[in-house]
């Protein structure tokens, strides 16, 4: 008896929840959706590429640090504790050492270098906002 009731309840539910009683969205549903999809596809097509790539930045940073480190250790002379610790002169090859013997890192060049970095950063920011 209970099984029969369950069967009828199933039949009734099928009738109520079935295909005939399905709701439909607005007429322009698909067209609205496709325009959104179009926008997504177009935004995917433009991939932002930075003017200076990451490896280039890395090489530049290593070069700047190496030059700065070398010049600082050179200007303080052999007695500097840090240069002894790093033993920088042993690391740098003879050829590279010859090339940089006359390199002097004055205060003016330090300020100029810092200014250059600041301006470069500013320029990148401006280019990025313009491109976006």
């Amino acid at each position, binding site marked *: *008896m209970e099984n*029969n*009731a*369950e069967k*009828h*309840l*199933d*039949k*009734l*539910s*099928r*009738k*109520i*929840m*079935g*295909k005939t*009683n*399905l*709701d*439909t*969205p*607005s007429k322009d*549903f*698909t067209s*609205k*959706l*496709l325009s*959104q*999809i*179009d926008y*997504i*596809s177009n935004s995917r097509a433009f991939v932002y590429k930075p003017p200076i790539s990451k490896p280039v930045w890395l090489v530049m940073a290593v070069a700047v640090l190496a030059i700065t480190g070398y010049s600082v250790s050179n200007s303080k002379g052999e007695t500097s504790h840090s240069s002894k610790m790093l033993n920088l002169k042993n690391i740098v090859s003879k050829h590279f050492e010859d090339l940089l013997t006359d390199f002097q890192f004055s205060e003016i060049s330090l300020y100029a270098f810092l200014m250059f970095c600041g301006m470069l950063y500013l320029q990148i920011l401006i280019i990025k906002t313009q491109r976006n």
Partner: protein
Amino acid sequence: MTISQEKIIISAILKGEQYAFAKLVDSHKDLVFSLALRMLKNREEAEEVAQDTFIKVYKSLPTFKMDSKLSTWMYKIAYRTCLDRIKKNKKYLSDVQIDEFTENQIKSIDNALDNMMAKERGAIIKNCIQKLDSDDAALMTLYYYDELSLSEMSKIFDLSSNNIKVKLFRCRKKLAKLLIRNLEPETIATYGK
């Protein structure tokens, strides 16, 4: 839609053919929208959620592994998107009590509905579905509309097949209770014979 048809449509969409996606949307939009409407109980929100669902489908299609039917996967996305919206809105509906029904009582409801004018019947049915709890409405819609198997249902709802069976059993009873509440006693008495 068969699995081979689904594969063709997926590869066309992945190639960037928009008509293929439009075809997919047209064949599933009614069910996705109805599911959203029955869960969220609001037409505007349901339309938004249905749109979000299809956008998610479009974006995630390259990662779809074909380990289930495309429709099952889409309904799962639709169900989850609705749940997210419900959580966001913090909407909770009062639950309906479960009563026992006899075979005759159910036949009476069925006959009463059959003998009513289509418009009136439609309004009563919509009212009852509106009062169903979101999860119950989703379960009943997917089970009875697309005639999904219990294993497919368990993939969508992340529940075991047995759990789905028990839930469906309770949902049917809740729906009958709501119908009795919505139908006037005289209507059942007059038409239900």
